[in-house]
């Protein structure tokens, strides 16, 4: 069958949902096609026994409070989604064991952040001043750049915003050194690096600072009904505004016109024609489903040049004791046994994060219970090297045991006896549900030449295929819930201009 729409959105992940919601609210006839039977992609949850587990979200940055909303809260309310968030006071606790190790908890809000940081690192005051100044200058530079519609006067940028240009073009660890932070201070400040999947010596400083600011400003925001609640709230916006969502509908081909313009997709044996297609699906997969002669040579090269982002092993535990009874006090703990992010990224048992949702949302599990969520970044497939379909279940169980025991030892708690439910996901799980190559959850690695600044400066000259826009963690702004939501809105705006015959970006 042939269906005709103004816009087709491929994939109901975070970006696809906000893209479709934005289109529908503008009265664009839209269908959202999703291969799974649920919306959200990684923004999902699952039920085991009496527990519902958050599948992927730790916390959102840029949420802010109801009185002083941040970008994410604003985005949801602008779309008319009835999403709610709970703010968590602490940013994280970070533990590095061994000689020169530390155990530090940082709080959100500028004053509390500064106080908690200086408590842990008494000599850091001056460097923190310089960091805050850099943040201010960065905001000014971005405002100036917006005012000049992305074509700033180079001389002005260099004279007035030199520090911004430095942070925008150097790795995080170098910039923190430049600002005068000691090794220990840098390591603590860099704790969030795993959220962007790139060690601090390769991660773009500007990019990291934007995220850090989001966390310090508004604190961590956590949706009360798991990230799946956010996904359903966006699906609701689409349906209420006359959009259609077709689940269990996997796109298998992209259709191009003679002029190279994307004119639709094939899915489930049907053809969906559209004036504009938005792909929440990573370009690798789109090109795999395209006649390559239509894909510009430079974009084929771009995709082949890029390195895929990291994936994860996650361990979900439902425990039949409360967090209090078990002695678990932190919402979020980062644990490592090596100092630098280089060592942490390269090694098995390098670093991992453990969240206890009940600390932030007490009613997240039934009374008398709590849940723990372990996240282990998988940087290469070294960890999965010896895994076969036959020993996969045993691999999951052994991996879980290893991390659970390490957590017990590091925190001095005992949880094994309280496990009522356990589930483990791996890169194969990500590959299964999202189809992303190598099971990546983060799109492309944001390192070096493919960092956020390089991508942003190249907007408009890359992946510039007529009738097609991309959104999601693989797009210019990189991974993360907040930026993925925003990427969908941006893609929709571009699509709307295209559909209405206005000049796009």
């Amino acid at each position: 069958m042939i269906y005709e729409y103004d816009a087709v959105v491929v994939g109901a992940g975070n970006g696809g949902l906000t893209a479709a919601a934005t289109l529908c609210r503008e009265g664009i006839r839209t269908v959202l096609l999703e291969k799974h039977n649920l919306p959200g992609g990684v923004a999902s949850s699952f039920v085991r026994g009496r527990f519902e587990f958050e599948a992927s979200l730790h916390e959102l940055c840029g949420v802010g409070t109801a009185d002083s909303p941040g970008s994410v809260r604003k985005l949801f309310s602008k779309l008319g989604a009835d999403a709610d968030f709970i703010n968590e006071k602490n940013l994280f606790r970070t533990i590095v064991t061994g000689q020169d190790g530390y155990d530090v908890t940082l709080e959100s809000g500028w004053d509390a952040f500064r106080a908690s940081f200086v408590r842990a690192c008494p000599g850091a005051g001056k460097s923190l001043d310089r960091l805050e100044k850099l943040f201010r200058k960065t905001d000014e530079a971005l405002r100036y750049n917006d005012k000049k519609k992305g074509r700033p006067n180079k001389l002005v940028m260099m004279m007035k915003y030199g520090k911004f240009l430095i942070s925008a073009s150097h790795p995080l660890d170098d910039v923190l050194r430049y600002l005068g932070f000691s090794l220990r201070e840098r390591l603590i400040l860099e704790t969030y690096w795993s959220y962007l999947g790139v060690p601090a010596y390769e991660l773009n400083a500007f990019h990291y600072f934007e995220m850090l600011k989001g966390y310090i400003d508004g604190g961590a925001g956590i949706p009360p009904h798991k990230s799946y609640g956010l996904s359903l709230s966006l699906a609701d916006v689409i349906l209420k505004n006359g959009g259609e969502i077709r689940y269990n509908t996997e796109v298998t081909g992209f259709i191009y016109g003679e002029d190279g313009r994307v004119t639709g997709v094939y899915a489930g044996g049907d053809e969906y024609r559209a004036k504009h297609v938005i792909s929440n699906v990573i370009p690798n997969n789109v090109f795999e489903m395209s006649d390559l002669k239509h894909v510009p040579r430079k974009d084929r090269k771009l995709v082949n040049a890029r390195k895929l982002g990291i994936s994860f092993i996650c361990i979900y535990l439902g425990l039949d004791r409360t967090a209090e009874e078990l002695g678990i006090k932190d919402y979020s703990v980062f644990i490592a046994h090596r100092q630098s992010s280089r060592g942490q990224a390269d090694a098995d048992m390098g670093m991992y994060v453990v969240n206890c949702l009940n600390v932030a949302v007490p009613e997240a599990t039934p009374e008398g219970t709590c849940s723990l969520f372990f996240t282990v970044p998988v940087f290469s497939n070294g960890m999965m090297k010896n895994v076969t379909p036959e020993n996969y279940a045993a691999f999951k169980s052994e991996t879980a045991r290893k991390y659970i025991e390490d957590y017990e030892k590091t925190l001095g708690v005992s949880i094994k006896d309280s496990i009522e439910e356990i589930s483990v996901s791996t890169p194969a799980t990500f590959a299964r549900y999202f189809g992303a190559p190598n099971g990546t959850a983060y799109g492309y690695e944001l390192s070096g030449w493919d960092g956020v600044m390089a991508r942003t400066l190249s907007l408009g000259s890359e992946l510039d295929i007529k009738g097609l826009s991309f959104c999601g963690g693989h797009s210019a702004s990189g991974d993360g819930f907040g930026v993925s939501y925003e990427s969908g809105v941006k893609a929709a705006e571009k699509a709307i201009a295209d559909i209405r015959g206005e000049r796009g970006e």
Partner: protein
Amino acid sequence: MKKTEKIKLSISKFLKIIPDRLKRIESASDGRPKPRSSYKPNALAEALHPRVQHLTVTETRDLSSDVRLFTLRPDASRGTDRLAPFSAGQYITVFVRVGDRVLSRPYSITSAPYEASEKYEIAVKRKNNGGVSDRIHETWRPGTSVDVSEPMGVFTYEPLRDAADVVAVAGGVGVTPFRSIVRSVLHGDCAARLTLIYGARDRESLLFFDEFSASAESGAIRFIPVTENGDGAVRGVIGADIISEYAPDTAYSLFICGPQAMYRALEKQLPALGLRRKYVRAEVFGQITDPWNEPDATVPDRDVYTLTVRRNGAEEQILCRADESLLSAMERAGIDAPSRCRSGECGFCHSRLVTGECFIPERCDRRREADAVYGYVHPCCAFPRSDLTLEINPV
């Protein structure tokens, strides 16, 4: 503390961002990107979770007057080279054509994981109601082509969670997942110390009796057969008394699998066993066909309601009895609605309840919190309490 070494950074690097990037991109190939299937996680996912497995019935064997064992092997001629591995206790959903409809029913895999390199075995009890099980008994012969799902389910032994001692309580054909676990124990793949308490009407209805007896004689498991007349077995109906008599003195995990009536009876007696909730695991075996027997059942104000089914934008009105699930009503009306476990657990039938009220037994409500907030249901265990409109997602 070590003094921080000074570092100089230059803004000129900013100007190199684009040239660097272009150079990197230019040096890459302009060929087809590596296909997804060439990545290990994707290949693993494909092997573990095939959308469909094309199999052939190779042997059949009657286990009792109404239960038949079917051996299924991969059908390479239709594209399935090898079976997806599974964990002992999991099930597959089989797709059966009845007239012009394809119906699906879940059956526990009763062979062991180590045998999955060559075969799955399932045991099907004939219900004599003109349904899927009759169809299977009537038409499946050696050589019959059969399509099944990937292995599914979480009724498996997990040493990190479960006690080292496991008491498996089975009723009737509900013994099938335990036979898989027993065979895993025998093969050395499962470290649980297993006591199998297996109840049936009479000696003839105890499936795999000789196999379990032999396993018990070898000392690999303990086997306690229970029949109503006590013929060659413990006399009675499995309850807290029989369980506590044969259960070990130390902490043990209780695994339960059997007909609905057995659950309801056992559920009431569980407190007497004093087990931590984490040590009780029940496989919801078969769909609820008598919702009025659920402790939280609400009383319908009519016998039959109108169910408007929406799919891909088209609507169709059918009738749904108050005592049948929305899924059953759709199947009766010839609508191919998605389903797998038929017991509320797997979520494959997840659908949007656009309007109307349902009764969802608390025992099988495995929806996510937000599903309830935004009006989504699992039609396999939702019973109408008003006229309703349901939006389903055909596969």
